[in-house]
């Protein structure tokens, strides 16, 4: 049992922006849900004859844990166990060893761990559970997958942390899909408060390196994106964070799992449909990759095509003064 001080120190407590987002989201959902009850009810059901979700088979073998396998077991920030992320779990230790922990340079280990989580584990929307369970299952939402990557890195002595944000969407998509329907727009805006995205940052050779999880190559191909690599982030590329929602955390905060579990149990039908849809998108993505001549060819093509965004460094200009 952690003391209140430890809870705060390990960032189990929701930071203020998180609390604000959650509060706005919950109030919004309650309000819209109350006034649009039939819509809520629709989200609960899976109609007869509708396609059901079948979890894909795990794409990797689970290594066996053997006594004496090394783990860092540190109490240092970003190396220690946190909520849903235990780097000292036997399965995590065994997998870290399988990937070359303590045998290969940190960057090589991070590349391998990133590949495992990003390309061999698949997105499945579900209530949040711990890293070892997720690794055993082979699927999870971005929070789950981020926890697995962080646990593997921490086990191997690489500091790792969560990067959480609420997503702001590309305006042209918003224009063409949301503009006309008030209820749809309202739902979308409200859900944006607490349907967050998670990424990972790993400290490699003295530098925090990004890792995108929760979007394997096929899924990225289905949306026309390049296949992201270790060191790349979605932010400023295909996502923009809602101002004020960007958070770097050592741990997933307390309460997030409860909120997610409540959401899943309130609208299980919607969540199952998401998972069915994800599988379809992935299949479509592989078709696109094959048509492009394989993964490397597809990725090279997309990286050439992409309109990049400039990055603005917010340097202080002497001519601007604030009170």
């Amino acid at each position, binding site marked *: 049992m952690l003391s209140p001080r430890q809870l705060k120190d390990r960032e189990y407590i929701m930071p203020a922006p998180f609390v604000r987002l959650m509060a706005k989201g919950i109030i919004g959902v309650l309000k819209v849900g109350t006034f649009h009850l*039939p*819509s*809520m009810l629709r*989200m609960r059901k899976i109609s007869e004859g509708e396609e059901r979700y079948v979890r894909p088979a795990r794409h990797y073998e689970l290594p066996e844990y053997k006594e004496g396998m090394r783990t860092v077991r540190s109490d240092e920030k970003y190396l220690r166990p946190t909520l849903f992320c235990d780097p000292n779990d036997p399965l995590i230790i065994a997998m870290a060893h399988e990937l070359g922990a303590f045998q290969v340079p940190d960057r090589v280990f991070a590349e391998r761990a990133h590949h495992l989580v990003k390309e061999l584990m698949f*997105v499945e*929307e579900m209530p949040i559970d711990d890293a070892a369970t997720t690794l055993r299952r082979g699927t999870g*939402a*971005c929070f789950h997958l981020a926890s697995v990557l962080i646990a593997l890195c921490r086990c191997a002595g690489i500091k790792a942390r969560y990067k959480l944000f609420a*997503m*702001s969407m*590309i*305006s*042209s*998509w*918003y*224009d*063409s*899909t949301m*503009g006309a*329907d008030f*209820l*749809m727009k309202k*739902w*979308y805006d409200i*859900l944006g408060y607490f*349907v967050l995205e998670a990424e990972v940052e790993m400290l490699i050779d003295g530098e925090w390196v990004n890792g995108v999880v929760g*979007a394997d190559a096929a*899924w990225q191909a289905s*949306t026309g994106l390049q296949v992201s690599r270790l060191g790349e982030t*979605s932010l*400023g590329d*295909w*996502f923009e964070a809602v*101002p*004020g929602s960007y958070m770097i955390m050592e741990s997933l905060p307390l309460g997030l799992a409860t909120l997610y579990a409540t*959401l899943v149990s309130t*609208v299980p039908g*919607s*969540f199952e*449909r*998401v998972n069915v*849809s994800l599988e379809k*998108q992935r299949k479509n993505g592989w078709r696109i990759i094959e048509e492009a001549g394989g993964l490397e060819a597809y990725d090279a093509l997309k990286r050439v*095509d992409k*309109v*990049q*965004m*400039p*990055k*603005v*460094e*917010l*340097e*202080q*200009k002497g*001519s*601007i*003064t*604030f*009170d």
Partner: protein
Amino acid sequence: MEYVEYIHRFELSTARYIPSNDNWTPSDNAVYSPSDYFRMECEQRDELRFKAVRYQLNRHYQGNKTYRTYCQESGFSPDSLRSVEDLERVPVVSSDFFKTYPCGRDFALWLANLYTGELPRVHIKSKEPTHDEVIESFNSAGMAVAYSSGTSGRHTFMPRDMKSFFANEYSLAKGAVSMFFPRWDPKMRGFLLMPNPFKTNLFAGRLGTVFYDIMKDVEVALDREVNTETVRQSMTQGDGIKDKLTKYVVSMSHQRSVDKIISWIDKRSKDKEKIALVGVPFLLFSVLNELKERGKSYKLGDQAVVLTGGGWKMHEDQRIPEAQFRKDIDEVLGISPEACLDLYGMVEGNGWMMQCPEGHHLHIPTSYIHPMVLDEKNQNVGFGKHGRFAFLDGSQGSYPGFIVTNDKVRMLDHCPYCDRPGPVLEPGISRMAGQETRGCGEEVRKMMVSDAGGQ
């Protein structure tokens, strides 16, 4: 009246916008030297454009770290620019980029780091300033920061200095006046179907100041301060009590504007003075509908011109085909379709594409705008094919005006209806189907929205 004399009168009216020609830059040359943007010799116009774009490109590359880094990451150097054909290689910036601003103090720094050159002294009297407070502070210091209406839910903010803003206003007015030849007259009265340009930083509103110089006794539809909060309120779509109240107030204000415009038209039809109605089409559409309901019509004829722009915004559901709109204007106000022109432009650029009276195709001022139509791979597809509109703005000195938009266009090398040389855009510009964004949480969000019955 000959065109030379006609445009000379315009130059006199807009003298304060034109920099002293002792030290015109290639950019100034491209904006201020042509007497008619749309009837220039191809060689002359290409030379002006190339020099203007190259001049601005060098300035932004040297004086704007954000753009320089962007060019370097794209493997582009301005030194490699040798001819008009090379312009296609200039790195363009997505118009979405200008919506990626932060809040508070960082917003001020964001604007400052987007701006090319030395900023004036800007003092912001707030610890956590709003967007409006930041803009006001910049503009009090002599800038002309303006923003789009933000129909998509997010405004676009552009940091112009007064020189760039003057170039924008001047070229807008000159393009319109030359297309309306010989109908414009500095003694004509104007009605802006927009907010008071002196009381807003909304780009489409603020541009209206030039009409006070080229017309007399200009009136406005909305004579009150308009800021980002006012714009947000006017676009509210909710069904709560507050939203309903806001909608009621907005609709009352809209109706007052319609009444005011009708009363003004009524007076002008009696005093026979020349008039110009300038502004957003949906407000004029409301005027036409109101007049139809009242069973009134006018025969304004050669006495009047109509210049619209800016699209239908939140009134998109009311949009009618352009030809039908002009027919309605003809039937209700008695203004012929040749005197009703629409223009296409945007807050990100200084280029104003003006419809010609003959065929209502949008002519591009290519002495300072280099237009392109890009395919999915960002390759220029040239003439005759649909794609994403992009342009290099050789007049833009405040920020790199090398932009790829979200607008779907088709460009033709020559207008099919008139003898003006140079490229045109077909009317009926639409939005590109947006790129769909996906992420783990985003999938849940979209599915729940869809299940809620939205799609």
